[in-house]
């Protein structure tokens, strides 16, 4: 049984991600956010269910659809919004943007814009944990599209070969941009791919945050105990297009509506109130707090300074040499 306080916190995190991203979509339409922006709306249960099952110092690494994981990890909404606005106060000083949120203080090693690119890096983080002999474990998020990339296979082979403490979480939302998983993968039930590496593979309803959390708690225990890597496939759905510029013509409206009926946020709200874990009143209060936090994040981002011209030359290397570009 997941503690009541944890369940309420999971509700808060999912709603925070949802509301912040709704504002991100507005800000993108107003051209205050540029570049690529991939919304996580619909998939919140996966990030929240998995990340809340971890210790605070377990490394987490991600793909480009990274807003949800960053926030579920406890990332600051202000510095999140400021990064998307390209401001100096952004979590990456305005150098990364939507796809490259990282918060190393929170052991969140960020998003990569290359499909599958962070998966071998996750395995390296797990190698560092094993090398140092600490009991930390690594969680790596990616989409179904990444499981057809070469490095995915290399990484799973390494992880199992060296029995490394890493949980691979595939968020199967059925589409790699606009291509159906059945058209791109020899095994569309991604968890079955684990057997090719002799590791356990599980499938979970990624629209049910309690189910995700439950499974992750069990898996975290075995991986922390030294049982080696595990693959989890969380079946979920993104309500929006692949990115803000995707009108989503490749899928049927009826399909989208069907998944919206399974929305993880009202689903959890219903059980929280129905099982008397909390009250409707408390949930409304959380909603108001999140609305205020969202407005505050936007105001902070708007009022923050642009990055300084000198910062262009900073952060390339930790040691600078005379021949390097400078202001």
């Amino acid at each position: 049984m997941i503690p009541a306080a944890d369940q309420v916190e999971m509700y808060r995190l999912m709603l925070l991600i949802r509301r912040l991203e709704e504002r991100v979509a507005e800000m993108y339409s107003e051209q205050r956010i540029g570049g690529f922006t991939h919304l996580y709306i619909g998939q919140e249960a996966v990030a929240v269910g998995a990340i809340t099952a971890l210790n605070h110092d377990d490394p987490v690494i991600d793909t480009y659809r990274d807003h949800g994981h960053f926030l579920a990890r406890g990332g600051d909404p202000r510095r999140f919004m400021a990064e998307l606005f390209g401001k100096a106060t952004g979590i990456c000083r305005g150098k990364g943007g939507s796809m490259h949120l990282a918060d190393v203080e929170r052991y969140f090693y960020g998003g990569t814009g290359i499909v599958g690119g962070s998966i071998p890096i996750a395995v390296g983080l797990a190698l560092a944990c094993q090398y140092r002999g600490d009991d930390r474990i690594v969680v790596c998020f990616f989409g179904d599209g990444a499981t057809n990339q070469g490095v995915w296979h290399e990484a799973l082979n390494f992880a199992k070969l060296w029995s490394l403490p890493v949980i691979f979480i595939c968020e199967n939302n059925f589409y790699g941009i606009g291509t159906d998983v059945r058209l791109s993968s020899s095994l569309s039930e991604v968890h079955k791919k684990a057997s090719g590496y002799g590791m356990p593979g599980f499938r979970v309803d990624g629209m049910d945050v309690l189910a995700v959390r439950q499974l992750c708690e069990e898996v975290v225990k075995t991986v922390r105990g030294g049982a080696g890597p595990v693959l989890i496939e969380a079946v979920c759905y993104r309500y929006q297009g692949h990115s803000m510029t995707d009108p989503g013509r490749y899928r049927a409206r009826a399909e989208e509506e069907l998944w919206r009926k399974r929305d993880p946020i009202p689903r959890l709200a219903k059980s929280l109130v129905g099982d008397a874990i909390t009250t409707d009143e408390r949930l409304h209060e959380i909603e108001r707090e999140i609305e205020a936090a969202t407005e505050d994040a936007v105001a902070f981002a708007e009022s923050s300074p642009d990055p300084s011209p000198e910062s262009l030359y900073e952060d390339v290397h930790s040691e600078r040499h005379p021949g390097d570009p400078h202001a």
Partner: protein
Amino acid sequence: MREIRYFEALNEALAEEMRRDPDVFLMGEDIGLFGGTFRVTEHLLAEFGAKRVRDTPIAEAGIVGLAIGAAMGGLRPVPELMTMNFAIVAMDQIINHAAKLRYMFGGQLRLPITLRAAGGGGTQKGAQHSHSIESWFVNSPGIRVVIPSTPSDAKGLLKTSIRSDDVVLFIEHEMLYSTKGAVPDGEHLVPLGVADVKRRGSDVTIVAWSKMVHEALRAADALAVEGIEAEVLDPRTLDPFDWEALHESVARTRRCVVAEEGWRTVGVGAEIAARLQERFFYELDAPVQRVGAVDVPTPYAKGLEQAALPHADDIVRAVLKITT
């Protein structure tokens, strides 16, 4: 001073840095039991064990990715990619990840990675195993490029690279591994970004690195017979590049030839020539000359291969063109 071979100097550097820092570890194909395809990691498995000398699958992108993650996790990985040809397999991890993550994350990370690989041709291994592609990496900000020509530089630069908190691509040369040279006893460090004058001269500056330093020295001997004193300047690291040393030398000699084993077109020599004309257009006595490989894939047949790769006589011809 004692004389040791290039591969032995590299081996000493690895062993010394591993003794000094328990976070330094090696990973790569055939580096453990086999001892490294170029013997660079010989005997290290016996001394440091399989935890720190890790034989890997043949999975170059994976090797680099794991090194990045291990560095994020606080370790100091020294992955080996066997040869630069296989670095091509790992380009996404090297360029899109290792070279970019620190910048993209606003400086939140340190990535102390020294990626070793052997470059170069000249041993009839054909087009896929003869690459001198250092220019690709110099063209990509975020990664240091170190390319030593002598056992002494190899040892001192490898030790410095391993201690550096940044991503370093450390390019060795297949034909240099068995060459001998004097290496100082005891602690020997060579800083990054400091060129070395391998021969003093007043009539022309020959800029060369890796194996081409030796071709340049042979060329300088031949030119001396003709009464031309060539200075051979070895930058030793291409990123950072010691522009100051180059400027100082060319300001004296007023003539320059750049000699590289890589292809001439858009090579490192092109950048050096461009920068020199920007700065010294009116001081130069002649146009900067470039010596490099012929722009064809490297062929197998010995005669053809030698015709494709640059040699001392090509350098001599280039110098004579601007000195007589």
